[in-house]
């Protein structure tokens, strides 16, 4: 504790004209983020927020968004962590190719991703057709929404967990193996607890990315509408002021859930999770 404090006090602010310029540029950027949010929040009265929140369409859309984003975070973590571990530990051929594939969704425009997914998951698609025979439809369903969210957000799960795993001394696993732990046992008892912060951070980022996703979702599932889609509808139908109240409701809900999850992931409650692992 004392060393962290010492480090903090030893850290010096940039001074002189360089300090002024860094503060000025940084401050402008902060204002650019904060001002629209403040303007948005101040347009809506408490009464209009209450009205928007009690509208069935807005409420359903918000709940759908939260639910789909939570499911997406779960799926992304379940499938992302093994891949992250392989990328962190393996020095196999094709490793960089796999890493590029993982990063691909970051550069694909989200509407393009939605169209591509629709080709695959639509009623005549490679996956969509057999799924339809089993009674599962992606087009215009929650599964389609989750698929769209997953596609655009999964790089965050893999990369965050990978960075977490890479920071762990590989000798710890070797020590665990020599002490009698199987590969799974040493992963569960050593690597996963030590990389848990990266894994949880990845899950929170996936959640945040998913809850705010519009482009890919609107193409694969215009209805049922997620919160961003519903707000877009309101904007088209009733204009700027009408959509603002719903927007603020979504903003408050997503921001609140994001902050709670991030606090969970960043250590306050992590210690308890950590202990539960033993």
């Amino acid at each position, binding site marked *: 504790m004392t060393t962290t404090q010492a480090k903090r006090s030893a850290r010096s602010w940039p001074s002189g004209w360089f300090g002024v310029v860094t503060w000025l540029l940084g401050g402008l950027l902060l204002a650019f983020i904060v001002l629209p949010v403040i303007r948005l929040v101040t347009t809506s009265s408490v009464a209009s927020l209450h009205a928007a929140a009690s509208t069935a369409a807005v409420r359903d859309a918000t709940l759908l968004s939260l639910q789909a984003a939570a499911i997406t975070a779960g799926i992304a973590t379940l499938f992302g962590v093994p891949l992250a571990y392989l990328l962190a530990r393996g020095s196999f051929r094709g490793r960089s190719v796999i890493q590029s594939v993982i990063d691909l969704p970051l550069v694909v425009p989200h509407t393009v991703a939605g169209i591509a997914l629709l080709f695959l998951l639509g009623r005549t698609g490679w996956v969509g057709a057999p799924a339809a025979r089993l009674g599962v439809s992606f087009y215009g369903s929650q599964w389609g929404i989750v698929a769209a969210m997953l596609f655009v957000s999964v790089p965050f799960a893999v990369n965050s967990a990978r960075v977490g795993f890479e920071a762990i*001394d590989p*000798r*710890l696993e*070797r*020590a*665990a*193996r*020599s*002490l*009698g*732990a*199987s590969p799974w*046992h040493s992963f569960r*008892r*050593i690597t996963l*607890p*030590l990389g848990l912060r990266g894994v949880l951070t990845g899950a929170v980022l996936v959640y945040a990315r998913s809850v705010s996703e519009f482009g890919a979702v609107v193409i694969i599932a215009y209805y049922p509408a997620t919160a961003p889609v519903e707000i877009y509808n309101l904007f088209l139908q009733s204009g700027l002021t009408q959509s603002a109240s719903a927007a603020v409701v979504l903003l408050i809900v997503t921001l609140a859930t994001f902050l709670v999850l991030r606090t969970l992931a960043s250590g306050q409650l992590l210690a308890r999770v*950590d202990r539960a692992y*033993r």
Partner: protein
Amino acid sequence: MPTADRGLSVSGLSAQAGSFTLGPVSLDVLAGRVLVVLGPSGAGKTMLLETIAGLRPQQAGQLSLAGTDITSLPPERRRIGLVFQDAALFPHLTVKENVGFGPRARRAASPDGSEDLLRQLGIAHLAGRSPRSLSGGEQQRVALARALAIQPGLLLLDEPLSALDQPTREDLRTLLQQLLAEVEIPAVHVTHDRDEALSIGDDLAVIVGGQLRQTGPAASIAAEPADPDTARLLGWSELGYGTAASGTVRIGQLVLRHAAEGLHGPVHAFYRPEDVELRPTAPDAPADGSITAHVGRIVHTRPLARITLGCDPPIAALMFDRDIDRLQLTAGNPVQVGLPPGSLRIFQDRIGPLIRRDSGAAGKVRGERGQPSPEDR
């Protein structure tokens, strides 16, 4: 008592990492004996340990422990305790949980003896602490306890003392010696430090560039290194290159009669600096092959002092600090320098000095071709 059926037997072991090839290595470590693998950095020492532990794929060879073939067993089933250079303790577990990790992973039915081990290693009071809060020496004790807690059939120690400061290292070295003598587990200890090797090892295996150069009892390898690299690793200083002809070896001004048997042509000579004999210069020409030199620098590193001597070839003598006054050695004064037969090791040098006094690559190339003389004392 050392017994063969409880030891480690390595035969023809080889492994590959990129362009580096280790082996083939063949070794035997009897129960109750400590084999020290001595070699310079990058010689493949750690790789050898990791291959024995099963943490690295091997290309060829057989491993057997206590009479059982373990070649194809995964690391978790080999029952080999491993201690790393910087302890590699699990940072999220307490000291006690670190030591209990092995028995728990093995689902040991009997109550594990980790409490006893902690007490034996003098770290019982640290049981509840986090590894991060421990000193280097304490961490290494915990690492030892953790490795011993699985009641291993073999202990592998990868430079466990080299990251510690001098006093801690000496403490822990003593503890390690006692412990290894007590547990009667065969142990392989890897180091690049000659003092450590000779104080801990019963047997030595010298490894250079992934190849095993010489194995045998520590004392006999130290006294009779088989090649120039091994000689250097064991504290022999280079005297230089010379020629052997008609019963004598000439190196610069030195003419050695006693060392020439069986040698012919270019030779590469080494000497023990602590065996160099210094005498006041005598007026009559000495007939014993000694030469006259001027005292150069005297470096006091108590209790020893190192004296560089201006002569051809250049020689350095190592002696007790207190003897310097007795011999009245002062910089610039002449002194008679003698090299007794036992202090010399002369190797036949087939290719001769390509680049004189080159300590690096050229030395290695020569080392591989250099042959020990059949008799040099």
